[in-house]
C-alpha cells in the first residue's frame, strides 16, 4: 500500500468539510444578495436561496455516497481500506445530520 492510501482515511470527511464550506459560504452570499426573497415559480415557490442550498447539499451527498461505494469494493483489503470505508460512512451520516436543515429552516433570519 502506498502513502496515498493514508489519505483515504480522510476522504469521506473531506467531502463533508467541502459541503460545510460550500453551504456556509453560499448561504452568506445568498443572504447578502437577497436570494431568499426571490420565489421561483417553476420550483414550486421555493426561493432561489433554498434551491441552491438544497442543490449543494444533494451534490455533496452524492459525492459522499460515491466515496462510500468506491471504498466498499476494497473494504476487505488490508488495514487502511476498511478504516477509510467506515470513516466515509460516518461522514455520510454526519452530512445528513448536519445539513438536513437546508430543507426546513429560515435561511436568512
Amino acid at each position, binding site marked *: 500500500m502506498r502513502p496515498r492510501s493514508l489519505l483515504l*482515511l480522510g476522504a469521506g470527511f473531506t467531502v463533508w468539510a467541502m459541503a*460545510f464550506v460550500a453551504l456556509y459560504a453560499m448561504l452568506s452570499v445568498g443572504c*447578502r444578495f437577497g436570494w431568499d426573497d426571490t420565489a421561483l415559480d417553476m420550483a414550486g415557490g421555493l426561493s432561489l436561496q433554498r434551491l441552491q442550498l438544497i442543490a449543494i447539499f444533494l451534490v455533496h451527498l452524492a459525492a459522499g455516497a460515491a466515496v462510500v461505494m468506491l471504498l466498499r469494493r476494497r473494504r476487505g483489503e*488490508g488495514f487502511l481500506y476498511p478504516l477509510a470505508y467506515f470513516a466515509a460512512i460516518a461522514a455520510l451520516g454526519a452530512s445528513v445530520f448536519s445539513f438536513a436543515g437546508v430543507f426546513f429552516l429560515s435561511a436568512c433570519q
Partner: protein
Amino acid sequence: MSRETPQDRQGAAAAPPVNPIRLHRELAALWDTPAGWQQLGAVNHTILGKRFILAAFFFFGVGGLLAMLIRVQLATSGTAFVGPEIYGQLFTMHGTVMMFLFAIPMFEGFAIYLLPKLLGARDLAFPRLTAYGFWCYIFGASILLCAMIAGVAPDSGWFMYTPLSSSTYTPGINADVWLLGITFVEISALSAAVEITVSVLKVRAPGMSLARMPIMAWYLLITALMMLFGFPPLILGSILLELERAADLPFFDPTRGGDSLLWQHLFWLFGHPEVYIIFLPAAGAISMMIPTFARHELVGYRAVIVAVIAMAFLSFGLWVHHMFTVGIPHLALAFFSAASGLVAIPTAVQIFAWIATLAAGRPRFDVPMLYLGGFFFIFVVGGLTGVMLAMVPFNWQAHDTHFVVAHLHYVLVGGFVFPMMAATYYWLPHFTGRLAEHRVSKPAFWLIFLGFNLTFFHMHLTGLRGMPRRIDTYPVEARLDWLNLLSSVGSFVMTIGFALFVVDLVVHMRFGRRFRRNPWAARTLEWAMPTPTTSYAFASLPHIEERGDRLAPDAEGARLAAGRGYLGFTRNGWMETLGVDMVGGRPDQLIVLPRQTFLPLWSGLLTAAMVLCLLAKIYWLALFAFLAVVVSLLAWTGATGARQDMGALPIGNGASARPHWETEAPPSWWAMVMTCAAEATLFSSLLFGGLFLWLVAPQWPPARPALPDPLLAGACAVLLVLAAFAGRGGLAALLQQRSPALRLGVCAGAHGGAALLFALMAASVPVPTAHAHNATALVLLSLCGLRAGFGALLAAYGLWRWHAGFLSAARSLDLRIGRVWHDYAAATGLIGISAAFVFAWLATTGGTGS
C-alpha cells in the same frame, strides 16, 4: 517479536556477540548531553520532554494562582480585593496561561518524551527543532510573565475580541504582549506539529506498520495534523490584529470596511479544534492506561481510530458555536449546532470502548485508575453540558455566563488534567526509575475531585441565575453570594489537593523504591528499556511483528539491551535511528540525527530579540533580527549530509539501508510538505478573510479599489512559473549527473524577480490604511512576495550545497525539498495574483454594503 526472525538469526551469525555494557558505553558517549553549560545545547527528546513537562507544570501553578485570586475577588458581592483593571488582567492571563502555556506544552512534552519510545526509535525526526520549539515556548512565556509582573498583562479576555483589543480601546502595550507573545509560543506548537506528524509517519521501528502502531501514536498523529491546520488561522489573525494596532491597517475596524466578526471567526477556527487538540492526547493516554489496568488489549482499536478521525474533522465544523449570539441566520447556526451535538458520538464511542476493555479484562485498581475514575465522572458531565450548549436556544441563555465557565472547566479539567494526572502516576516510574508509595496520592485525589465539584458543579446554576462571565463584582440583589462563596471555598480545597499532589511527586522522587523494569506489566514498547531511561532509549531497535499493545517488553527489553536488534552498534560517531516505509513499516532508510548544539538556543534568542523589537516598536531592528534568525536557521544545515555517496549501509540483522539524504522521501522532505500544508491554511484563511469582509463588513465598497497593474502581475506570474520549472530542471539535471547550477541560478533569479514585482504591486496599493480591502490586498501581495523571496533563498542554498559538494545524483535531497517549495510558491503565487484581481473586481461591482 519475542521469537527470533530469520533475519535475526542471520544477523546474529554475521555479527560478533555484543557486550551490553560496552554497547551502552559507546552509545552513551554519543548520545549523552554533557553536564554543565552543555545542557543548554541539549537536543535529546528525553531531556527536552521533561523540560517541557516541568515548565508546563510551573505554568499550571501560575494559572492556578491567578484562579485563586479570581475566586477571592468573587467570593462575595461587592468585593474590593482588586479593581476591574487588575481583574481584567487576572482572568485574561488565567485563560491564556492555562491554554497556551500549560495545556499545549504539557501535551507536547508528553508526546516528545514518549513518542520515540512508543515507536521504537531513538529520537524524534528533528531533535534540533524540538529544542528550538522549547526555547520559543520558554522565551514567549517569559515575555507574558514579565508583562504580568510589570502590571501590563493582556486584559481583553483570552480570546481578545476586537474592537476592545484594538488600539482605540486598549492603547497600551497589553494587547501587543498577547499577540506577539502567543504567536511566539505558537512557533513551538507548529514545530511540534510538524515533528510529531513526520516522526509518527516515518521514524518507527522496522515492522511497525500503521496497523501495528500503538493507539497513542494514532492519537498523536491525528492531533498533530489538527494542529497543523488549526493554528495557522490564529497566527494569521494575530498578525492582522497586530498590523492593525501597529500600522493602522483596518482589518477589524467597522468604520473602515473591517469587521470585528472576522477576528472571532479566525480565533474560533483555531479555538475550537484547540479544545480537541488538548483532549485527544489525553484520550490517547487513557487508551494506553486502561488496557494495562484491565489486563486486556484495547477493545475496538479500529473503531477508536475511526472515532478519532471523525472527531478531528468534526471539530473543525463547530467553531461558530462560540458565536451563536452574534446574529447569524438560523440555518447557519443549525449546521454548527448539529455538528457540535454530533461530536458527542465519537466521544461516546471512545468512552464505551474503554468500558468494553475494562469489562473484557480483569480490572485491577491502582492510583492511576482512581484518577481515571475522576476523569469519567467529570468528563461525562462536561460532555453532557456541552451537548446542552450546542442547542441554540439554550445557548442564547447560557452563553457567556458562568454556566459556560463551569462547562469548559468540566471538559478541560475532566478531559485533560485528570487524565494527565493519571498519566503522571502511570509514567512517573519511567521518568524516575522509582515506584511510588501512593500514601498521599489518594487523599490528594479526593481533595482535588471534591474541591473541583464544589467549585464548579453549582456554577452551572450561578450562570443560569444570571451571572455573566468576567464580571468583577455583582450586586447583592442578584442573590448570587452563597453560590459564589461555595465555589471559592471549593477552589481552595482543590488547591490544597494540588499541593498534596506536588508533595506526593517530590516524596516519590526522593524516597520511591527502585525497580527493574515494567512495574505495571504493560505490553507496550516504552517499557522495554531500562528506567530511568537512557539518552538513546533503545540500545538496539526491535523488529515489531505484533500490534503495538500486544508486546512482551520484559523479554524484548533484555534482548534489545544486548544489542540483538537493529543498529546494535555505533559507527562514524553517528547518532542513528531507522526510518520506515510510511504504511508498511519496512525499514527504508538510516536516519542520522544531529548532535547536541547551541544553534537552536541562538535561533531562539534571536527570535526573542525580534519579538522584543516588535514590542518596543523598533521595526528596523526587528527586520535585522528577522534576517539574523533566517541566517541562524540556515546555519543548522551545515552539519547535515555528506560529500560522497555511501550507498546501502548495514543496519544489523543482515539488513541494510541508505542514509536518509540518499533516499526518496526522508523526514525533512515530509517536513517541507507539512510546512506547505500549514502555510496553505494560513493563506486560505487570508483569502477567506478577504471574501468575508466583502460579504459581511459595513462601509463597503472602498473608495479606491486596489487593482494591481496587469503588466506587473503578468510578468510576476511568468517569473513564478519560470522559477518552478527551473527548480525542477535543476533537479532533473542533477539526477542525470549534470550540473544544476545554471538552472538553480535562473530559479533563484526568477523568484527574486517575482518577489520584487510583488513588492512593487504591494507598494502601489492605494492608501492601505483607508479601507480593509486595500489592507487585505497589501497583506496578500506581501505574503506572496515573502514566499517568492524564500524560494530564492532555497534555490541559492541549493546552489551553495552544489558548490560545497553535498549534491550528487544520489544525494539530491536538498533540491527535492526545494522543488516542493518552488512548486508551492508558484501555485499559491498565481492564486494570490488572481485573488488580488478578484477582490478588486468584487470591490467595484459587488453591490453596496448592507
